[in-house]
């Protein structure tokens, strides 16, 4: 279980996280919604230890990752995978080397076994036979899927998705969502997705949280969020231009 407790983070004078509290249960798919620039990605980066909070705790299976030393943090990261908003593929490596990066660095599998594993992951994300393409030869959707293949290559228990469907066409968005669901079903992974794509969020979520003003303002099942009387939730879910989020 992941517990985020009273998390604070500021950049200069701008406070981005102002006491975030959140629980993510094993095997569940939590979607964090929120307007652009509200700090959703910052929250995700704290959960995987890319950023250190100014205050607060993040407990993963009871261990406070904000106080972990590098070696232990790396051990924990091997149980996690992250799909970046921009896919963040390594430009200088081909698709196979990108996906196999973690495997090559942390296991002693043979080249043949690694190739087999990479091909299996590429098959899962619907990109068979693209092993030797360079990232520059891939479209936006393909890059995201390769990024996802890299995130799941080490068969993580927790997957973090940072706006996985932003900039994708509806068909590709559905493909990514289905992949998200199948990973949850087949591998039983815990997933946290941040997005502002409502359709995608409600397709994959077990629970939905709304992040606004540096805090989680509402959390609940899809139905609870849809029927919430919180005006912030109502405005965001309905996508209304006028409302408490846009009031000066």
């Amino acid at each position, binding site marked *: 279980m992941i517990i985020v407790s009273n998390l604070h983070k500021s950049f200069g004078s701008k406070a981005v996280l102002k006491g975030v509290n959140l629980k993510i249960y094993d095997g569940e798919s939590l979607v964090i919604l929120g307007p652009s620039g509200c700090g959703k990605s910052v929250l995700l980066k704290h959960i995987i230890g890319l950023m250190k909070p100014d205050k607060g705790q993040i407990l993963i299976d009871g261990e406070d990752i904000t106080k972990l030393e590098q070696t232990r943090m790396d051990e924990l990261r091997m149980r996690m995978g992250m799909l970046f908003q921009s896919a963040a593929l390594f430009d200088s490596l081909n698709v196979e080397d990108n996906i196999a990066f*973690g495997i090559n660095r942390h296991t002693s599998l043979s080249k043949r076994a690694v190739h087999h594993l990479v091909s299996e992951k590429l098959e899962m994300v619907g990109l068979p036979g693209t092993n030797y393409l360079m990232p520059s030869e891939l479209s936006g959707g393909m890059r995201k899927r390769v990024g996802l293949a890299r995130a799941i290559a080490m068969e993580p228990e927790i997957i973090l998705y940072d706006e996985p469907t932003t900039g994708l066409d509806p068909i590709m968005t559905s493909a990514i969502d289905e992949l998200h669901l199948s990973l949850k079903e087949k591998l039983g992974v815990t997933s946290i997705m941040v997005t502002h794509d409502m359709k995608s969020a409600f397709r994959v979520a077990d629970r939905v949280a709304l992040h606004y003003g540096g805090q989680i303002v509402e959390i609940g099942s899809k139905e609870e969020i849809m029927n919430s009387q919180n005006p912030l939730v109502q405005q965001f879910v309905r996508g209304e231009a006028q409302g408490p989020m846009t009031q000066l």
Partner: protein
Amino acid sequence: MYLIKKAKQFLNEVGGMTILFLQTIYWTIRNIRSGKFDVKGLIDQMAHIGVDSVLMVCITGVSVGAVLVVQIGYQFAQMGAQGYVGGVVALAMAREMAPILTSIVVAGRVGSSIAAELGTMKITEQIDALDTLATNPVDYLVVPRFWACTIMLVMLTVLVNVVGMIGGAVVAVYQIDLTLESFTNSVLEWLRVYDLFGGLFKAMVFGAIIAIIGCFKGFTTSGGAEGVGKSTTDSVVVAIMMILAVNYFLTVFISNLNSIIF
């Protein structure tokens, strides 16, 4: 206020670079101890940093050697001291010109390329991706670049010394009317192994400076394409300024050591 702000920024940067240097040494020792030193990565970087710079530094070396002989040769000829031309040029090349000019060329070509590459990786979240794959960016990106730059700058300086002296000898023989024998004898009489090693030691330090500044500027890039451009320019400017400043202290150190040893 502006000066205080700039001074704070400068101290922050020097502190950051020192920490990066110490982390690089830490990861080097750790990798050697665990037998995981990335030799392939080091060789790739040595090829990129060293081999690809050979033509540029050769042209620089020949040009400087030739120009030094022309400048010194005519002056010395007027004083009837042509016999010293080879020695003076060799000393100037070995002690100062070869390490400084090679470093400046490499700072322009390699330091900027390191900053641009790492800066692009930073703004496209590739460095974050390394972290999520339980790979320390200093270990994976900085260590091979640091050692490749340090080793190759020494090798390139040796090359510049050699081609510089060849260029100088050609000009001495065909333009200053010195004999090759007189030029060579003068070089052998004046130049000591200590001078050569002093220059190579400087080159090693300059190589480390170029790599650390390039990597630091890359890692601290922000603000998209404009940020990458700024980091690239800064890496060259700061590296050249740092090389020139450190050169003074190294020269004093090497010359004091010379007095102690000899």
